């Protein structure tokens, strides 16, 4: 057992889990082409969930704030993104691939900016008065979520909203028997870019150093002379912007959205944050990839238990590593 553990750690430790999951799925699925399609879908889904989860994880890690309104940012991002795509139909549906992509990036950017602004408002008005009080945080952020969802219903109505997909991102890459949707490749690439950006900021800048230290021990960072609360508003806005960005990406992926989109994703987002380890960006990425793969593999093998499988994954991981796979705080 000890040898097994050492070997496991030597070959990458918990980073091996997605690989192990993929191998098991390969055996169970049996058809390589199907397996590749599902794996690509899982990775793309994982990256979009990562966008939604990373902000939540940092917000909790840094300030101990339980933010149940996070899903409102996801939904808002989805609707704002869909609306902007609608305005830009001429670009999106046209045959010029550059305009296609520019239109999509603009929609995502507007969604992110709106998400950041809503985040700013939420932090100042709703969260700030209840720092350090978990019970009230739950109550007030759930309240905020309900209000936000009603507002979204008021603005966009209850009918499902179709989301136009840019012409270049429709269809699939076909290689032999394997087919991979273009949009999934795009989603994966964008998620990877965001991860890289977050990694560089957290690892290479002074603000990043303060955030990492603050996640471990806020009080000590303040005792060294820094204001975590001033840093936190920035982190909260960035987290909300990322959630909105994830929402916009997800909207494009789904093609048809309703106001419950954020709430539906939230279960998976919470699972990701918990199994990844609170406050850990690398953990969120790992958790999101695991959850995305699991959802797609099980969704194919046995659709009825797809969501259940992720809950079981979470419980298994928590039994094995109670603080998550890559906890930010080293004990």
């Amino acid at each position, binding site marked *: 057992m000890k040898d097994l553990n050492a070997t496991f750690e030597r070959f990458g430790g918990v980073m091996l889990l997605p690989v192990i999951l993929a191998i098991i799925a390969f055996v169970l699925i049996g058809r390589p082409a199907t397996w590749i399609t599902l794996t690509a879908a899982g990775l793309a889904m994982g990256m979009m969930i990562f966008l939604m989860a990373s902000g939540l994880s940092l917000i909790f890690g840094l300030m101990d704030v339980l933010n149940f309104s996070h899903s409102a940012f996801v939904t808002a991002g989805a609707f704002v993104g869909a609306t902007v795509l609608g305005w830009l139909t001429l670009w999106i549906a046209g045959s010029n691939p550059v305009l296609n992509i520019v239109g999509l990036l603009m929609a995502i950017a507007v969604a992110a900016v709106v998400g950041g602004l809503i985040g700013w408002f939420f932090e100042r008005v709703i969260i700030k008065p209840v720092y350090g009080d978990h019970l009230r945080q739950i109550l007030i952020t759930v309240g905020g979520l309900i209000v936000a969802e009603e507002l979204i219903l008021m603005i966009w109505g209850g009918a499902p909203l179709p989301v136009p997909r840019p012409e270049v991102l429709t269809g699939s890459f076909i290689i032999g028997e394997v087919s991979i949707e273009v949009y999934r490749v795009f989603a994966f690439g964008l998620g990877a870019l965001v991860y890289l950006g977050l990694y560089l900021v957290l690892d290479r800048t002074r603000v990043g150093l303060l955030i*990492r230290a603050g996640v471990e021990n806020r009080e000590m960072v303040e005792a060294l002379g820094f204001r975590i609360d001033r840093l936190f508003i920035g982190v909260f806005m960035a987290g909300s912007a990322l959630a909105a960005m994830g929402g916009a990406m997800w909207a494009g992926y789904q093609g048809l959205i309703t106001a419950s989109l954020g709430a539906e994703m939230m279960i998976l987002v919470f699972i990701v944050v918990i199994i990844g380890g609170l406050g850990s960006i690398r953990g969120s990425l790992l958790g999101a990839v695991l959850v995305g793969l699991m959802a797609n593999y099980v969704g194919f093998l046995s659709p009825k238990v797809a969501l259940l499988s992720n809950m079981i994954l979470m419980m298994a991981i928590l039994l094995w590593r109670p603080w998550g796979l890559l906890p930010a705080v080293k004990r």
Partner: protein
Amino acid sequence: MSGMILRLDDVHTDIAQYHILHGVHLDVPEGGVHVILGRNGAGKTTTLRTIMGLWRARKGAVIFKHHDITRMHVSDIARLGVAFVPENMGVFGGLTVAENMRLATRDGSFDTARLDRVQTLFPPLKTFWDKQAHALSGGQKQMLAIARAIIERRELILIDEPTKGLAPAIIRDMIVAFREIAAETTVLLVEQNFRFAGALGQTVAVIDDGRMVHHGQMAELVESQKLQDRYLGLSMAAAE
């Protein structure tokens, strides 16, 4: 308050609904090591945390130099030149030794001469400079916590039980280190190890049940068995 760097005047601190400090008076002269002694649960940590702004005094005043810091934000107190080394050391385990040290500087850069001196004082920090701090031993973490407090010159360093769990050999090194630190700054030291405290302290205050019950020169307390029996009681004798 001529010659005093810190004064606590009738400080009352509550933690949640509990009244913990019942009117603490304390004068800390500028320069040297000054010690707070007291049995477990007497209120030593609470006193340091109140000075640092980590707990708020409900009543009374904390005066640092010419500033009333009673209601100041922790980070502003730190910026005035007060450093805090908590009982659990407050080392960031996920950060490297270098990153821990860098955070303790105002603008992220080191005065190299000073860094050299700190690393000479605590050689393991040089050896493990790029290692994650959670992998350090308890004694090495304590060195890191103290090194952070002295990497830039501070006016006042608050240190909570730095010898807890350390081997005698390391404690001897710590005495040397503290003498050097106290040559340029003031140290307010909370200690249970009377031999360590006695070797370093100039003045001593004894706290019990949230009140100061004795103030005096450390030399006097070290000499007098009677005072020791009276204020330090059996618990301290047992710790010797």
